[in-house]
């Protein structure tokens, strides 16, 4: 039997490597799709503009291009990645003798790395977008206002959104893995009650103005900083669920 | 492989048979336990038991770092042992079967002579 030295870091990195072992699903494919969306969106914009002769109308149309939401694809796709990382990768890693703790730590690190990678990528694209005046058509895919106004702001906002989708997505996947359909249904019903309850409460104390004012005060970056708290809670919750998850035969 | 008797005994007997027939000459090397195990598709521990049985009886011996060898005089010893067992193993059942079929002792002797010359 080989003597094993206690080097915890050495057991977390293999988990990270495992998640990256086949980069097709998590890196290659999403970039291909995203760039395809970008190219197609630009072509569509160009086609639209080509059919408008009047410069005034053209300017108005260009304004409308500033609110494209098709960059949302990449965020939603990451939920899929997060879910797969739990539903398939966790049982697979268990087969490799990985403890739940090391899996949680390795996967968390993986999420952070992916988030950093994608937020840097998107920020760079937004810089290019700004520099080319909206890809030459005044369009806005990555520099949309709700991501922030400056590259550093955008970098942070992108990062926070990715982190939130990863950890919330994986927490929900963990609930499904442990309690299956029953667990998911219960969770979402409970969540719905909670949200409805909160809305009712705020309406009852007529606090919507205060809520709006708070968001205005905190600002975009501040609000997303608070979302990191939710992400942290999701991460802890997900781990708590995973700790007692057993294989379903 | 016969299911009714311990496999290690059958392995020992197979090696003994090879020694008697001359397939395994004296002072030649016998396949290793792992080789037997793989060839016969049995657990190495079982194969090892069979080999060790023969080592205990002095039929095989171990040369350190090289392997198992057939001991000198092994064939002669085995033949002697088989001769002792010959009566109980072959003659007795022959007589019993002959008795069941009503073949007398002289008829039996005739049959034996006929078979030998054929």
């Amino acid at each position, binding site marked *: *039997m*080989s003597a*094993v030295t*206690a080097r*915890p870091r050495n*057991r977390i990195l*293999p988990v990270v*490597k*495992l998640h990256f*072992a*086949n980069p*097709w*699903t998590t890196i290659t494919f999403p970039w291909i799709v995203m760039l395809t969306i970008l190219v197609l969106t630009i072509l569509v914009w160009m086609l639209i503009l080509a059919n408008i002769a009047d410069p005034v109308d053209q300017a108005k149309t260009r304004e409308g291009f500033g609110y494209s939401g098709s960059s949302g694809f990449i965020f939603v796709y990451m939920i899929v990645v997060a879910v*797969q990382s739990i539903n*398939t*990768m966790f*049982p*697979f890693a*268990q*087969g*490799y*003798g*990985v*403890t*739940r*703790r*090391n899996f949680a730590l390795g996967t968390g690190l993986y999420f952070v790395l992916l988030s950093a990678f994608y937020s840097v990528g998107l920020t760079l694209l937004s810089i290019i977008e700004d520099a080319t005046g909206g890809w030459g058509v005044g369009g806005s895919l990555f520099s949309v206002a709700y991501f922030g106004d400056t590259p550093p702001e955008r970098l942070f906002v992108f990062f926070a959104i990715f982190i939130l989708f990863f950890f919330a997505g994986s927490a929900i996947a963990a609930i499904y893995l442990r309690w299956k359909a029953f667990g998911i249904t219960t969770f979402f019903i409970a969540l719905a009650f909670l949200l409805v309850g909160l809305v009712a409460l705020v309406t009852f104390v007529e606090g919507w103005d205060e809520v709006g004012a708070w968001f205005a005060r905190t600002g975009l970056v501040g609000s997303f900083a608070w979302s990191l708290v939710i992400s942290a809670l999701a991460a802890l919750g997900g781990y708590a669920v995973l700790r*007692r998850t*057993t*294989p379903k*035969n | *492989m*016969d*299911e*009714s*008797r*311990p*496999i*290690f005994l059958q392995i020992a007997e197979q090696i003994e048979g090879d020694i008697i027939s001359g397939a395994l000459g004296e002072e030649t090397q016998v396949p290793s*336990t*792992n080789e037997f*195990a*793989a060839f*016969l*598709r*049995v*657990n*190495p*521990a*079982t194969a090892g*038991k069979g080999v060790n049985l023969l080592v205990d009886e002095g039929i095989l011996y171990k040369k350190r770092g090289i392997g198992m060898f057939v001991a000198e005089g092994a064939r002669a010893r085995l033949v002697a042992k088989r001769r002792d067992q010959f009566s109980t193993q072959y003659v007795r*059942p022959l007589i*019993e079967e002959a008795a069941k079929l009503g073949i007398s002792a002289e008829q039996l002797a005739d049959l034996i002579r006929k078979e030998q010359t054929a």
Partner: protein
Amino acid sequence: MTAVVEVDGLTRKFGSLAAVNDATFRVEQNQIYGLLGRNGAGKTTLMQLLTGQQFASEGSIRVFGENPVENAQVLQNTCFIKESQKYPEDFQPRHVFKSAAWFFPNWDADFAAELATEFRVPLKRKMKKLSRGQVSAVGVIVGLASRAPLTFFDEPYLGLDAVARQLFYDRLLEDFGEHPRSIILSTHLIDEVSNLLEHVLVIDDGRIIIDAPADDLRGSATNVVGPAAAVEKFVAARTVLHRDGIGGLASVTVAALTPAEVSTARSAGLELSPVSLQQLIIRMTTEKEMEQSA
């Protein structure tokens, strides 16, 4: 002898059903154990308990002297291969073998490549496009090439055809001889593996009903066949494991006979025939079940 696994009073309950019920046994180092039992007897649950994937309701487990639950040091030296393994999206066999190296300290990549050729596993096709036999083969290859000091095979060869299964048994024996380790094989195909086993554990309804060296078991019973009256007379004073018969012929399974008893039986005109490990285990299992329901 050192025990790699020591289990004492182990129980795992699901509600009121005990999947594993008061199990106590040891697994000695560097032997091939068979964990035999019917479908649903508790084989998989037991192995999951030993690898910390399931949690015990009662009792203790020691693997390499420690509790395996969430124990990275212990788990690093184990490998658990099961039949219904799901592989990550878009993984190909080469990704499986590449990543296995990061988790099994003794991983032998050359051996894995050899086995992949022998089992005809295409390295660059997606797992989801492979046939069931090829997927099972990947699992089996990981189990063999991991050279983990304690390796579990939970019926991973059900998807393999007879030729591939024989290949697995052959490679297993060969590699076990050259790199001794502790192996636990669960199966309900007893006859196929019976010669591979050194020790047998039989689990029925969650309970360990047989825990014995394979050689002892193999020699422990005989079928006595002949005219009913003569057979009954012969078995009168012995423990009967099983009775069978047709017309005036009886076939009774009894405990092992001494050479003297063998001659007596033969002289009485009775025939003795072997009882395979599978028949023996089936009969002992059925007998226990009848005892329990009585």
